[in-house]
């Protein structure tokens, strides 16, 4: 690639290139678009993932009473509303000066683990298994959950029931599967009754067993495709995630840990209520989504990756036995090669799904869930920051509330935003590996989507189409005229 720019972010001479757009990217949450600039020899000059983001929300919430935020923010996303519900509640805990009661914290954790379970199950079984089980350039008409249900009915069934179980945990803790109200400033509005607990206990063993099966499946896929899985979209990156005081994986609470791409610790157990001292957001003209970076490394070098792969590899251990064992196996597999692979995301995600299932079981046996002290408060504060590890990665909610109880400022950094640059790096790598110099086919373009999907991005948190999103790829000449078009209709047929 001597005559090409190495980074592929911005082409040197875009005027002579033809443009290919993948719009929208399918089987991801929401709406995203990828554009490629190619020359007449099919060499790739520029690759970009563009995202429509939810900046509007931060304005919308201004003027609203603070206690409304944890419920209102759920409208950000139909896929992981609970993550926003809990992150905003944590910020509001600070506003009301609360230290949570054991019951409140445990009910919230249970809700959160239910969300992790259902979100990870949805992603692995519905959105990614078609690529993984059929192959990235397999018959596109079958490469969807309907195809999976036909070829692997047991896998499809487990996916549906794991997800449903997670949603039941959410319903019981939040009051509803979506737009629940369970988490409120300073605590929760309900506990978990004995009947509700028993109802959930009934199936938890099965959920743990199926989570282990899913882990075995992803391991087997890595074994079968060792070289290609290891190399696919591989790139080096810094990482960011929360860890518990003792270094354990903790998805609900902790301090921030950042490591550079060589594993050196940049900061650890950093108090997230001052996150802006270590993380800053950059803006680029071609994307609505901001590009956060680690301040100490600067905007060029400081981008990082969040989410399951960062969490599982960067924590010191996982505090539930089966998931911890699974983590050790993952770290040791083939000399640790999967821990740096973009497809390693799937493996890490399944470890977390097992961890969530184990935690749910543990919590269900905890009598604090039936406690009656639900809410606490203390010295009222002006500023509140809530951070959790959402299914897709670190989620930051930050509010300023005035003396009339109205929100005057809000800043959100959602998981997918943290991963913005990392996803761009991954697809550039895939473009180099699979597309550069070749005639484009749908199968080749799907490789780009596979790399994006590995991150489980939630691109606009609005629509959700289970592999049936219409997709159009256009080849344009330098004048912008369409040379040829590849279209996938909503039923998956290509023309």
């Amino acid at each position, binding site marked *: 690639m001597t005559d090409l720019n190495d980074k592929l972010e911005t082409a040197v001479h875009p005027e002579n290139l033809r443009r290919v757009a993948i719009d929208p990217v399918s089987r991801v949450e929401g709406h995203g678009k990828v554009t490629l600039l190619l020359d007449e020899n099919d060499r790739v000059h520029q690759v970009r993932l563009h995202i429509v983001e939810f900046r509007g929300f931060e304005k919308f919430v201004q003027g609203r009473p603070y206690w*409304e935020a944890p419920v209102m923010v759920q409208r950000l996303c139909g896929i992981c509303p609970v993550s926003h519900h809990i992150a905003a509640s944590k910020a509001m805990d600070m506003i009301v000066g609360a230290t949570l009661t054991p019951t409140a914290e445990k009910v919230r954790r249970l809700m959160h683990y239910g969300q992790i379970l259902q979100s990870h199950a949805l992603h692995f079984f519905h959105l990614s298994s078609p690529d993984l089980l059929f192959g990235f350039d397999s018959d596109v008409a079958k490469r969807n959950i309907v195809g999976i249900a036909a070829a692997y009915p047991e896998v499809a069934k487990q996916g549906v029931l794991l997800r449903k179980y997670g949603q039941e945990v959410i319903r019981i803790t939040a*009051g509803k599967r979506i737009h629940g109200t369970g988490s409120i400033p300073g605590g929760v509005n309900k506990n978990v009754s004995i009947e509700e607990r028993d109802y959930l206990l009934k199936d938890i063993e099965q959920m743990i067993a199926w989570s282990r099966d899913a882990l075995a499946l992803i391991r087997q896929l890595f074994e079968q495709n060792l070289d290609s899985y290891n190399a696919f979209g591989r790139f080096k990156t810094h990482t960011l995630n929360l860890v518990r005081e003792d270094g354990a994986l903790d998805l609900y609470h902790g301090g921030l840990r950042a490591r550079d791409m060589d594993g050196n610790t940049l900061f650890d157990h950093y108090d997230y209520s001052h996150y802006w001292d270590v993380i800053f957001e950059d803006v680029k003209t071609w994307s609505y989504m901001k590009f956060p970076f680690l301040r100490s490394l600067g905007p060029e070098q400081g981008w990082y990756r969040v989410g399951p792969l960062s969490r599982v590899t960067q924590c010191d251990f996982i505090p539930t036995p089966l998931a911890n064992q699974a983590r050790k196996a993952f770290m040791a597999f083939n000399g640790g090669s999967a821990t740096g692979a973009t497809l390693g995301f799937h493996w890490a995600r399944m470890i977390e799904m097992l961890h969530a299932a184990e935690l749910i079981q543990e919590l269900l046996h905890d009598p604090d869930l039936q406690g009656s002290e639900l809410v606490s408060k203390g010295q009222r504060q002006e500023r509140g920051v809530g951070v959790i590890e959402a299914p897709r990665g670190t989620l930051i909610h930050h509010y300023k509330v005035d003396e*009339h*109880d109205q929100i005057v400022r809000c800043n959100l950094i959602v998981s997918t935003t943290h991963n913005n640059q990392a996803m761009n790096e991954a697809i550039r790598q895939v473009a180099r590996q699979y597309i550069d110099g070749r005639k484009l086919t749908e199968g080749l373009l799907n490789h780009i989507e596979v790399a994006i999907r590995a991150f489980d991005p939630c691109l606009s948190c609005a629509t959700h189409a289970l592999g049936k999103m219409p997709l159009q790829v256009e080849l344009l000449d330098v004048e912008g005229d369409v040379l040829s078009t590849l279209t996938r209709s909503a039923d998956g047929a290509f023309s």
Partner: protein
Amino acid sequence: MSDTFQLDGASIPFKAGQTVMQAALAGGHYIPHLCYHPEFKPHGSCKVCTVKVNGRTAASCTMPAEAGLSVESNIEEMNGLRRTLVQMLFAEGNHFCPSCEKSGNCTLQALGYDLEVHTAGFRHMYPDRPLDASHPDILLDFNRCILCELCVRASSEVDGKNVFSLAGRGIAKHLIVNAKSGLLKDTNIALTDKAMQVCPVGVILQKRIGFSVPIGERRYDQRPISAQALDDAPRQADASGSCTACEGTP
């Protein structure tokens, strides 16, 4: 033997001075309503209670009961009109039920469910109505006001304070606070006032209560409004002045 009139084929007894609504509720028959409240003089503004009396439409909350009247209420024609009225109320204000703390306790929402109103039906007007959060303990969210005047009536008739009024006409009609500054903090409203209890929607709110009642335990979670209206009729305030039937303040 008291006089009777016919309501949807049933014989309804009434006492002199009762309206069609009062007699119907007392006799165990529900007629949908919004601005009617058993403790206040009928107001007749929302028109949700409209019925057909001897073939002509009338507001049942203001219509005096008379012997021999033939009243039709639970018929598709009237329910269709009620649905449209409720849709217009939803379209006129900013009612975002999923993030409204009155959800589950809101009369407008409950009525919407009961009448099977599934969409706003009209283009939303998205009015710009800033909150009044000036009072330390009470929040006014004008976005949800349906101009029923219950708070106006409660404040003047029961509390003797006159905190609220309606101003403007037609589509420009709106709720105002009777203070020079126009702000609630400059009135003598108190949390214990009747005006705090009567708002059928989420305008007059005690601060920092928010979503503290879980889904499932809110007023309309278990039983629809049509079933509950009968329990409450006739509704009375208890010795402490609070009316258990009124939504809002526990």
